[in-house]
């Protein structure tokens, strides 16, 4: 529902980065979206395409990397992919585990054509 705003923020970042590379073209922007970010990748892609259509950014590719939720066990330090919201450590059975990834809503990289 708010993916168009997110797409717009990504484009703003690209425009800002482009100022550091005069005479070059940014061809690709990579973003990381965590499972817990509450952002739908397809809706974001669609919003982004609508936003760049008929602009100088029309050829800019948005590459989305989806990041699953990973927990770390506070007892045995085992890291595991959390499935079905089951926080229990599959190795030692401990319930106290901490989320270490899956909240991302980050711009990872941009590709600049010289």
């Amino acid at each position: 529902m708010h993916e168009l705003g997110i797409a717009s923020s990504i484009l703003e970042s690209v425009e800002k980065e482009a100022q550091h590379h005069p005479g070059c073209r940014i061809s690709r922007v990579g973003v990381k979206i965590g499972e817990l970010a509450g952002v739908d990748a397809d809706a974001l892609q669609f919003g982004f395409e609508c936003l760049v259509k008929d602009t100088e950014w029309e050829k800019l590719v948005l590459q989305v990397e989806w990041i699953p939720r990973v927990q770390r066990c506070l007892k045995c330090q085992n890291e595991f992919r959390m499935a079905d919201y089951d926080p229990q450590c599959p190795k030692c059975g401990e319930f106290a585990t901490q989320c270490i990834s899956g909240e991302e809503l980050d711009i990872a990289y941009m590709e600049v054509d010289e």
Partner: protein
Amino acid sequence: MSRVEVEKKVLNENQILAEQLRERYREHGVLCVNLISSPGSGKTLLLEKTLERFDKGTRVAVLTGDLQTENDAKRLAKYGFPVKQIVTGGTCHLDARMVEKHLADWKLEDLDLLIVENVGNLVCPSSYDLGEAAKIVLLSTTEGEDKPLKYPSIFFKSELMVLTKIDLLPYVPFKAELARENARRVHPGMEILELSSTTGEGLDVWMNWLEARRVKAKAKPIPA
């Protein structure tokens, strides 16, 4: 072709503003909480009952967000505390800039508590940090117990879940225990309160929670 590593938040601008707000709240010892729920879970009624219970001298203010109308601000203004409506004009969440803008006429040194009532929506508000000390998510007994599983992001990011409309429990198929279990599956260790704004049951526990957090926010760090 060269690759530039960026590694920054997509909502970097919002994040910067939110951190500035957080710092201002900290400086002035103001507790800011961000209330989030589906439309109709009882955010505004809970706020009404909360304001009603505050002593006249309580230094509290409310920002309330909606897509349209000043209705909520009118409802809340009756209690004599500063209230401002944020009309988003269609935007489905509040962001840090809207909060900053609407705070402009208030002096933070005159406040101890700032309650932000977000737009009724369980999805988008979870992405936007408003500089609050805690997000609070409301779930009412007329919704499904599986809301935490369907909308994990907001339940994961909220420090407290308030289960509202518990006076309706005898009449609805809602299983409170299952809702609590689902919330803690998504967010182990999450605090959970239950109340009815209609009967007043559980409101004391809610008021105590707010007060304890307010005292904590007020405590100035000990100078080194």
